[in-house]
Every structure is written in C-alpha cells, then in structure tokens.
C-alpha cells in the first residue's frame, strides 16, 4: 500500500465523534449544484435515481398495459390499430423487463449492499455512475422512438426472422436491439460492482456465514447477470449486424440458423427471471425475519437454495422452445431441470413459513406484501411446473395461459416483494415513514386487483385465446372474461395509485423514522436515516448473523482508517479479515461524458457501421479523462 510519507495522514482513531463526522463529511459529501450532482459517485444517490427512474418506467409500462386492456375489453374494438398494438405489447414487455424489473432490483442492491456489508461506498463507484447514465439513455432511446411512432413491434424477445432484415422494416428492430445493449451494459457494470463489494469490502468479521440473506441473493443475482447478459449482448449485436452489414447469423438460406436466436435469447431470458426473482427472495427473507422477531429459519438451506437456483436457471431455457421440434429426449432434460428447480424454490418457501410459524409475526404492510407474494408466487410456481411438461406446454404455448403464468411469477415473485421492500426500506432511504393505513389499502387493492386480472387469463388460455392478438371476433367465447379482466385491471391500477400517493405524501411529510424503526437486525439500520454520505462514522465489527439483535445497545467498531481522503477496508473473501486500506474514487464528471459518448456511438451504429469506428474516439477520450490522475489523495491506492 502506497502512503504519503511527506505529511502524516489524518486517522479516525485520533478524533472524537464530532471531529470525525466533520472530516468524513468533507471527504465524502458531494457539494451542491447541478454540475456536482451529475458528478456524484455516492451509491445512495445513484441508487435513488435508479429507483425513481425504474418506477417511472413502471408507470409508463403500466399505462401501456391499460391501453391493451381497454382495446381487448370488447371484441372487434378499433381503439388501437394492429401496428400500434404490436408496438404497445413490445414496449410493455421490453419496458417492464429491461427498464423496470432488472434495474430496480440492481438499484436496491446498489443502495443496500454497501450498507448491509458495512462499507462506505460500492466498489467501482464511477462505473456505477456510468451505468445509471447508460440505462437512462437506453430507456430514452426506446421511449422517444415510441413517441415518434417508430417503436419496436417484434415482441420483447424479437424472434428472427420477424425481426431480421427480411421482415423487420425501418429501424424498429434495431432500436429494440440497441436498447438491449444499453441495458445489459449497465447491468453488467452493476453486477461486477456488487460481486467485488460483497467479496472484498465486507465489514471485519462478516464471514460467509454471517452475510445477510439479501446480500447473498444479490451476489447470486450478480453472477447470473455476468453469465447471462453477454449472451443477449451477442444476440442484439449480431441482429444489428445482420440488418446493417448483411451478415447472415440468423439466415438459414446462407448457412445461418434462425433457432440460434431462440437458443441465445432464452439462454439469457430464462435466467433473467431469476435475476428478478432472487433479489426478491432476499427481500422476503429479510422482511420475514424482521417482522417475525426471530432469526430466519434455515439460513444455510436458504443460501444453498439461492445458489442452486442461480445455477439451475441456466439449464431451463429450452422449456421456452418446446414446440420448435428438438429431440424429445433432449427436451426432457430441460423438463427435468425445470422440475428440479422446484426443490430450492420449495426450500425457500418452507423456510419462510417456518420462520413465521416459529416467530411472533407482526402483520405490518411489508409483511402483508410478502404474504401476497407467497400466495401468488406459489400459484405461478404450480403453473410453471405444468408448463414445464412438454405435452401440456404444447397445448397452451402462446396462449393467455402463459401470459397468466409469467405474470404470476414476475409480478407475484418480484413486484409484491419489491413493494414490501419499498415500505420496509423507505424510512431508511428518506428518513420518513410511509402510512400504514394507506399501505394496507394499497396491498388490498393490488392483491385483489392482480388476482382478479390475471387468474381468469388461465381460463382464457385454456379456451384457446392466443397472445399478441389486437382483437377477436364476437362469436369467440372470450368476450365476457376479457371485459371482466379489463375491469379488474382498474382495481389493480387504483392500488398502484394509492401506493404512489403514499410515496409522495411520505416523502414530503411522513413521520420521522429514526435509525431503526422496525427494530431490525442488519447493519443498514445501525446508521442514521437517511444515512450520511460516509454511511458509518466508524466501520462496525460483525460477530453474528443478526448484529443489531445481538448487540442492541452498541456495536464494536474498527479504527485506523484515514479520514482526509475516501478510504475503505478491504477484507478477505471467506472470513472477512481486514487485509488492506483502499482509496475510493472521488466524484467525477467523466462517467457522465463517457456515457454520452457511448450512447452516441451505440445509437449511431444503428444507422452506419462507421459510427463504431469514429464513435470510439470520443469514448476513448472520455475514458482517458476518467482514469487520468487528478493529484488527489485518492490517486494512491
């Protein structure tokens, strides 16, 4: 470790608490002003931006769903024309999956992981800032194209040849593909940060068996992202190449393979479900323990279940392709894995139920959403086992049964826990409490509205209604159920409306939360709400899974960090023994410029391959600016 020998560094063990806080603020706080705000690398600020952005996309995607339900409420409706409807269901799926679900889970990780492992910032904080600007650019690209009536119309999985050069006219499919590149680049950046933060920045004593379950789930999610996202980036890049420079990756007539698209897409697409679900499972584990007032039942099996789910997720993708004509025995291997993943999923559910059973549950709003999650996710899991069976899947493939199934899994498995998590961690993020009364209303309306909207879709699917049709004839037996579903969707929308009203109300005038309003056990509750820029005045020492329950009065802390620069503890992977002191980068505007340069290059490459060549120059310039030594104390490692 390099040290400045000329002047003695200012260490935290020489300062009293007030002096220490003053110096830490000087080192860690982002000064005011728009320019400085653009340059911040504080994980909490960036996570808040991510969360707000993701929820804006949730609202936009939800409005598209409402438009579809209005169109389908009656047969032969003419509110939306077929082309606009195609754009809308593509935008809905793409927005919800790529611009809401994945980013919001990663955003929760960006906010919570550093706090829960007891460090002062996420690893590679400038990369973190870069990742936010990149996903924002990707979202803007997609939605501006929609505003210009040039949005993708090829479904959220953009199958070739429909999305290829033969059938995909204009730049619609290119916009979809490049939006994918933006979002996956961002996701990969965040995943790397999470892995390094969890492995190397844990508070002293937080050995592997003391890592909070939410952090475990985020770690497994990050590894899935690292393994899965390159596949979809390959897919989106080769699709653009096929369309722009006439490569033939997906053209069977020229030696390509249309099925290659499906394999590559679903090699990413199925793990994507677990990228969304596993963080939710971590949130559920945390909320269940806190509101049961006891340690989680089955910590070890839960960790195993997270890891096994994360790995098995890569052996399920062909169950999205059961009707393409692969050998039956080969398909059955994927059926086997699809059935086997029910084992870790079941272990998780039983551990949560056992925790509730053995504890003294307090049915506050976060726990209500968790119970809603368990009910809906189990229903989604059961229909998942049904569609994992080749004969059944062949019958219901591309029908509303599948639409019902994946909404049960995704909304039940991710959105319910996420809303519970927002109620749970909102006080930490803002310092203010959300309303318990409005929370119960929101939960009731969303739970009822969701089930009334999506359960009948199973029946619609069994009655043969296909997905992605913009209308249907009056003599088909679908009209009554469709009207019922559309009316129920209004109930669901009203639930979300109550939720958003509660968020805005609480943000402005909610009751003060205090550091630990739920009397929870994990480290993020050991600091003030909202946490200061430096997270912890002194880095805690951990000697239990539930440190704040073991030591409710005062935690042991470490000493020996510099406070005249941004500095962190680097610890060992297994035992979390302190190994070194490491500087953490200061705020920088260069990630913002790098993201703009990258965005220009990526958007330009939709139109001309030369954009990659010439666009690489400003990207290189911004990266040089990013890494150029600035003469600050943080330059030394």
């Amino acid at each position, binding site marked *: 470790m390099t040290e400045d020998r000329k002047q003695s560094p200012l260490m935290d063990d020489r300062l009293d608490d007030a002096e220490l806080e003053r110096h830490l603020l000087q080192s860690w706080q982002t000064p005011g002003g728009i320019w400085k705000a653009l340059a911040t690398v504080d994980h909490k600020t960036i996570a808040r931006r991510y969360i707000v952005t993701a929820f804006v996309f949730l609202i936009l995607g939800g409005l598209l769903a409402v438009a579809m339900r209005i169109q389908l409420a009656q047969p032969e409706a003419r509110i939306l024309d077929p082309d606009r409807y195609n754009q809308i269901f593509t935008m809905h799926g793409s927005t919800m999956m790529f611009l809401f679900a994945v980013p919001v889970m990663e955003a929760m990780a960006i906010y919570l992981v550093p706090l829960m492992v007891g460090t002062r910032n996420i690893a590679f904080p400038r990369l973190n800032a870069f990742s936010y600007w990149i996903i924002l650019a990707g979202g803007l690209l997609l939605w501006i194209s929609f505003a210009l009536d040039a949005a993708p119309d090829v479904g959220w999985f953009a199958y070739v040849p429909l999305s290829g050069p033969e059938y995909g006219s204009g730049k619609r499919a290119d916009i979809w593909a490049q939006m994918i590149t933006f979002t996956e680049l961002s996701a990969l950046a965040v995943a790397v940060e999470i892995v390094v933060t969890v492995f190397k920045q844990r508070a002293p004593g937080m050995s592997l068996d003391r890592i909070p379950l939410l952090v475990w789930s985020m770690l497994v999610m990050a590894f899935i992202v690292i393994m899965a996202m390159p596949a979809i980036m390959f897919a989106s890049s080769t699709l653009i190449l096929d369309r722009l420079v006439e490569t033939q990756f997906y053209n069977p007539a020229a030696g390509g393979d249309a099925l290659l698209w499906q394999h590559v897409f679903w090699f990413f697409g199925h793990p994507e479900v677990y990228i969304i679900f596993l963080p939710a499972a971590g949130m559920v584990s945390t909320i269940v323990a806190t509101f049961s007032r006891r340690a989680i039942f089955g910590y070890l099996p839960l960790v195993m279940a997270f890891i096994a789910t994360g790995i098995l997720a890569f052996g399920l993708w062909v169950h999205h392709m059961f009707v393409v004509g692969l050998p039956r025995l*080969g398909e059955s291997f994927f059926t086997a894995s699809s059935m086997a993943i029910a084992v870790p999923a079941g272990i998780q559910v039983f551990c949560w139920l056992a925790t509730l059973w053995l504890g003294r549950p307090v049915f506050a709003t976060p726990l209500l959403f968790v119970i809603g999650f368990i009910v809906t996710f189990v229903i989604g899991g059961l229909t998942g086992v049904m569609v994992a069976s080749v004969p059944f899947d062949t019958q219901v493939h591309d029908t509303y049964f599948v639409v019902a199934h994946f909404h049960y899994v995704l909304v039940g498995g991710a959105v319910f826990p996420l809303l519970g998590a927002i109620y749970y961690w909102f006080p930490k993020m803002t310092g203010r409490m959300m309303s318990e009364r409005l929370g119960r209303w929101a939960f009731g309306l969303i739970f009822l509205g969701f089930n009334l909207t999506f359960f009948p879709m199973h029946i619609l699917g069994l009655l043969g209604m296909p997905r992605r049709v913009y209308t249907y004839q009056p003599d088909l037996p679908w009209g009554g159920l469709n009207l019922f579903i559309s009316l129920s969707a209004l109930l669901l929308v009203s639930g979300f409306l109550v939720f958003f009203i509660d968020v805005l109300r609480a943000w402005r005038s909610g009751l003060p939360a205090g550091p630990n309003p739920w009397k929870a056990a994990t480290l993020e509750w050991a600091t003030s709400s909202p946490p200061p820029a430096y997270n912890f005045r002194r880095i805690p020492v951990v000697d239990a899974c539930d440190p704040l329950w073991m030591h409710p009065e005062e935690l042991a802390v470490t000493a020996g960090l510099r406070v005249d620069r941004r500095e962190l503890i680097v610890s060992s992977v297994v035992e979390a023994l302190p190994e070194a002191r490491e500087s953490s980068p200061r705020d920088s505007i260069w990630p913002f410029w790098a993201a703009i340069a990258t965005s220009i290059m990526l958007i330009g490459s939709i139109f001309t391959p030369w954009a990659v060549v010439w666009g690489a120059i400003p990207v290189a310039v911004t990266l040089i600016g990013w890494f150029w030594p600035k003469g600050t104390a943080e330059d030394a490692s």
Partner: protein
Amino acid sequence: MSTGIAKYAGLLFAPGAWAINTQLGQILPYIDCGAGASWSTVASFGAVALALLGTAASHARIGPGESRANLFVVKLSVLAGLAFAFAILLQGAAAVLLDPCLS
C-alpha cells in the same frame, strides 16, 4: 483430492456434472437413435455418480478441525451437491423412459 478442492467439491462437481449432462442430452439422442445405443442413460448415471462423489468428498471435510466459516462452505457444498444429483437423476430417469428417436 486436495483439501481445498474437497471443500468446494459438491459445489463444483455436481453443477459441473449437471451442466455437462444437459449438453450431452442435446447431442447423444441423435447417436443413440442411429446406433440403437443408450449413451444418454450411461452419461446421466455417470454424472449422478460424479455429483455424489463430489458431495461425499465435501461431506468428508465436516469435522471439528474446520473453522466455522469453512464448515459453512462445506455444508453448503454437500447440500448443493445433493440438489444437483437429484436434478441429474431426473434427467437419467428421462433417458431411461424415453425413446431417443422421438421428436
């Protein structure tokens, strides 16, 4: 087997055997169908054996000499090994039951 590898054997061998067997399941049915052989079955039960071997190697490390964190990793390996052995066993059952020429 070195003690370092044994600690992680269940976590490494069992998912590895499952991943390889899943891939073989896309290749061997063609060979089985053409040659009238049962390589898919042999591969599946070989993979089960490999997974269980890894699990057993990890299990052998459970003892009073291990640190608390190491014991956690070892137990994690054993549980994961069993979960993946079960998944491969289901694949083996499919290989026994299904005609490789079905498509």
